[in-house]
């Protein structure tokens, strides 16, 4: 097994809610509330969950765009949150991020060359000043954009192309880890596949590790080696792609999987659908005990009082991490292995 490149332990991020005349803290939004995981070298770890589950905050914490309330992240043997100044800046080179919205994450007044080249201004020792234009053009070429478009502005590109610019900027400094926060959700279906294929190609060529944050379970399954399912700031289930999609043991994962529409009308009546009641509770006032108990059909008194730990629980074949007192495997979707069928497919990246 590959070694871990990034280890998060008990990460917590609470945002204060200020209220009243004196702007006192009257509560906390518990965006991320005790999340631990490892990212292995060269793998893709998918993080899925619905809005408000804390997946984006987790991404920002890993980038240290936010300081955690508590917890630690060890990156390549270095405690990330203990670093200051120059050491931190050096560390940032190795962890980069691609944002969701290619329309707002690129400065409209800068050219593509400036945007992709900006990391070199901040880390001037990576590429000598003379070679920058060439380096940027190589990057554009690598992500499938025309290197001659280096002087164009973001608005001259389509959504998919803009996301490629964002990716080029993300990989400019040769990072070891790329955090992708919903990188394809703003894109059209036909363009989404281009970007997903590009990310897979780059991973193979550059040996990147990805943290792929998304709400689309199909895309996450496609790209991930391992998957973590988040609910209200906590990890509900974490395991290999097969464990999560084939033998989910947490009721939330099961409900989530059953709710995803599969593009095959013949499965219409065969598919078992678990329709959850109600909405996700507010992270400012999460339910006691297991956070899912208010919507769970299995909930017992124990679930209201005891917080279930994320630990190895049997899934019928082996064990994987699940945070449910009554974890039980249940096949929601029948998986078809098509890995050897599609040789003729011509991929365009």
């Amino acid at each position, binding site marked *: 097994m590959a070694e871990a490149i990034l280890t998060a332990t008990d990460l917590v991020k609470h945002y204060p809610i200020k209220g009243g005349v004196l702007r006192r803290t009257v509560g906390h939004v518990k965006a991320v509330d005790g999340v631990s995981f490892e990212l292995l070298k060269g793998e893709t770890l998918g993080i899925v969950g619905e809005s408000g589950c804390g997946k984006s905050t987790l991404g920002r914490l890993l980038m240290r765009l936010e300081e955690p309330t508590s917890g630690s992240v060890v990156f390549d043997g270095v405690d990330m949150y203990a670093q200051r100044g120059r050491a931190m800046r050096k560390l940032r080179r190795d962890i980069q991020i691609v944002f969701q919205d290619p329309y707002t994450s690129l400065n409209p007044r800068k050219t593509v060359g400036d945007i992709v080249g900006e990391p070199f201004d901040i880390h001037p020792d990576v590429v000598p000043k003379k070679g920058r234009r060439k380096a940027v053009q190589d990057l554009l070429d690598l992500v499938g954009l025309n290197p001659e478009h280096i002087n164009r502005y973001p608005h001259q590109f389509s959504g998919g192309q803009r996301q490629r610019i964002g990716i080029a900027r993300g990989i400019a400094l040769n990072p070891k880890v790329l955090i992708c926060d919903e990188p394809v959700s703003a894109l059209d279906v036909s363009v989404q596949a281009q970007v997903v294929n590009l990310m897979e190609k780059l991973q193979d060529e550059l040996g990147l590790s990805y943290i792929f944050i998304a709400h689309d379970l199909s895309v996450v399954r496609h790209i991930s080696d391992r998957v973590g399912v988040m609910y209200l700031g906590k990890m509900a289930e974490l395991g290999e792609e097969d464990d999560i999609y084939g033998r989910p043991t947490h009721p939330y994962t099961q409900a989530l999987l059953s709710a995803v529409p599969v593009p095959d009308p013949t499965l219409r009546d065969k598919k078992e659908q678990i329709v959850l009641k109600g909405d996700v509770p507010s992270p400012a006032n999460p339910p006691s005990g297991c956070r899912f108990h208010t919507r769970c059909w299995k909930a017992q008194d124990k679930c209201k009082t005891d917080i279930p730990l994320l630990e190895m629980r049997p899934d019928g074949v082996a064990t994987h991490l699940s945070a449910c007192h009554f974890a039980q495997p249940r096949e929601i979707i029948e998986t078809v292995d098509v890995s050897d069928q599609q040789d003729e497919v*011509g991929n365009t990246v």
Partner: protein
Amino acid sequence: MTTTETTSRRRAKTATGSEYHPQDGLLLEVEDLHVEFHTADGIAKAINGVDFSLNQGETLAILGESGSGKSVTAQAIMGILDMPPAVIPKGQIRYCGQDLLTMPAEQRRKTRGPEISMVFQDALSSLNPVFPVGWQIAEMFRIHRGMNRSDSLERAVKLMQRVQIPAAKERVKAYPHQFSGGMRQRIMIAMAIALDPAVLIADEPTTALDVTVQAQIMALLQELQEERQMGLILITHDLGVVADVADKIAVMYAGRIVERADVYDLYRQPAHPYTKGLLESIPRLDQKGQQLAAIGGLPPNLMHIPQGCAFNPRCKFAQDVCREDRPTLQLVAPGRESACHFAEEVLNG
């Protein structure tokens, strides 16, 4: 709501005298519809000849990416296009035999709501933030039925109960921001079905919602449709949602319908390269080891739609004829139409 109540509502409607009577269940016919937007930069041809029809109790999905003209089609049917900049140079939209486009404005206004109504994608911006939701639902009854405040509010509560909003009586005076995204969409649905329309247009009704909530909303829409025998036009880019609920599908590309078929046929064996490409480019939840065959290139600019077949620059099957002659929608198999010179080759793999 019980069935008896529904029948009584139907009867009540006849009593108020709907002047529209569908012949043989045929509700809506769109014929050779063209829509252009006259902008400072030129004329964008959003819709270039669209034909389809809708029967009672039928669900027609209009599938397409952004810019394909699917939402503009819906807005043209509803008569809510901003004119100018929009211009409808050609075409008919017949509701129960009467052309909506040539109808006097006042008469058309009276169809909007009682006959044809619409659910929008973004419920938060579609609801008025400064009025209670009950008041906004009740407005339908006050304006179209001339009811007084208390009666109309009573009807609003009933509708809120019908769309399964918990504690409807207490929440009728709440404002839109006090509801979650899923609940807001339910309120939009309540408004849309308030006057018991014969045609309901749902424009990306679940795109902004989380997957577990999406499942709830789609289930509700289907249930209402069955109960009231509405004709439902579902506008979406999500092949999964379509597979779950539609009877017929029209696939749009660059303002034209490129393929039309029964939902089972279309997914089993697409007859247009674009549809085929779309189906191959989406990651599937129930498959592992899948390779995504992305469609290369980008959707066309509506100001400069390619000559011949609009899809030809991105098409694997394209020949010289595709660059010169624009294919029209032709019958390729019983109940199946495709606008491709090589439809039969595509159909037969």
